[in-house]
């Protein structure tokens, strides 16, 4: 058991959160969608697992490198 962190790789806004704590995710499955400069930027899980923590809220502005979601893998 380990926990991985999904981080923002751009400054932007959290547009949509597609998963809830406890949901299962597949590798590369989108967990949330960021919005920066009018572009949708999906953030996918890098490994299969279960959502442990969602660290941001929809509409929140996040900096490059911010931890968005923790996934137990």
């Amino acid at each position, binding site marked *: 058991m380990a926990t991985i962190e999904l981080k923002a790789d*751009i400054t932007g806004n959290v547009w949509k959160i597609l998963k809830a704590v406890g949901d299962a995710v597949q590798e590369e499955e989108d967990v949330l969608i960021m919005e920066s*400069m*009018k572009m949708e930027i999906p953030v996918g899980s890098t490994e299969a697992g279960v959502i442990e923590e969602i660290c941001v809220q929809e509409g929140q502005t996040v900096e490059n490198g911010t931890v968005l979601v923790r996934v137990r893998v």
Partner: protein
Amino acid sequence: MKTVLVANRGEIACRVMRSCRSLGLRTVAVYSEADRQSMHVQSADAAVAIGPSSPRESYLNMERLIAAAQASGADAVHPGYGFLSENAEFAQAVLAAGMVWIGPTPQVIRDMGDKQRARELARASGLPILPGSARFPFGELGSLEDAGAQVGYPLLVKAAAGGGGIGMRRVDRSEQLRPMAEATQSMAQNAFGDGAIYLERFIERARHVEVQVFGFGDGNAIHLHERDCSTQRRFQKVIEESPAPLLAQTVRQRMADAATRLCADQRYGGAGTVEFVVDADTHEFFFLEMNTRIQVEHPVTEMNTGRDLVAMQIEHALGTLTAMAQSDIDAQGHAVECRIYAENPLKNFMPSPGRLLRFQLPEPQPGVRIDSGFRGGDEVTHFYDPMIAKVICHGATRDAAIDLALDVLGRIEVEGPHTNLAFLRATLAHPGFREGQVFTGFIDHHKRELTVP
């Protein structure tokens, strides 16, 4: 003296204000928190704060915009492009507040904004339409497979409320159709609050060619020729030009006539653009949609025709436009526009917000127009569009215009955010582009050659 409020930001706000000034009109800018120091604010005669940086709380907030217009004594509102420019409700609110809306009627905006309805109207005006299905409301995909077979593969699943490439997915085989349709419906339901989708034929090598039209609101309309906007990345235009290369004069004429007919039939008032998808191999063309606003790439048309489209919009709305006939429109030479974006072509065109530590544009010269809303020291924020400038070059021939653009782009200096300047130059210099072999997949197809570090 009449006052125009410009309900926009960046280069288009600055550009609209230039035409206002040339017509002797007073200008009012609106700005969000992030734009307090922006160029468009300093270009205006007066400026009104309209709220926080998020577009939803400022440039998309109708109540605040109407209140700003009233407080500043505006007689008219120009919406620019994007934001509320194609929002019928906003147009209606401006009119209801007793001001002039610089754009077509709310009814036309509503009709053309509903893509299904727009196709029906275009069909009624005799325009060729791409094979497509009826719409499937959210959660209702009953006869999807039959509709897919009728449209033919490959096809696009499109969100009815989508646009600008958002909510569009390609399907190559029938077994992929249902999962893709379901995914698009739930995305559209979440994103737009409207999960309806429809299917449309996908053309393998498509070109995007649009016709600039202008209607006088009384059933009379003219066109100002076409623009080829095929060079795109992720459904976003990067380079636009006119005339469309390697397209027979007869085809261009038929497209222009069709677009003008639609405009006239709608009793359209003001500037508009009729978009067509053209099969790059057969040169068949099909109506895609009509944009009821000024376009980003309108300067291409202005360079060739010598007309000021924004001034025409304003004068038409104020009722002072002198009538013109098709024979009054004369297009000369060739124009190319390049959009400079704060983005990183080496990282899949990921946006690159940040401060412009240096932003140096060449001195003005004949045949070159640069429209920008930024100066050195300005912040390109993540809240808005990544476009920092448009470079439009005009020459006697296509080659001359491209050579000029290569030269001008090479003399623009940007430090801070990543930009697509080197990518634009590589594209302009590419043999396929030089030959005019443009299609919407051009950038993806040649990506490795165009994105050399």
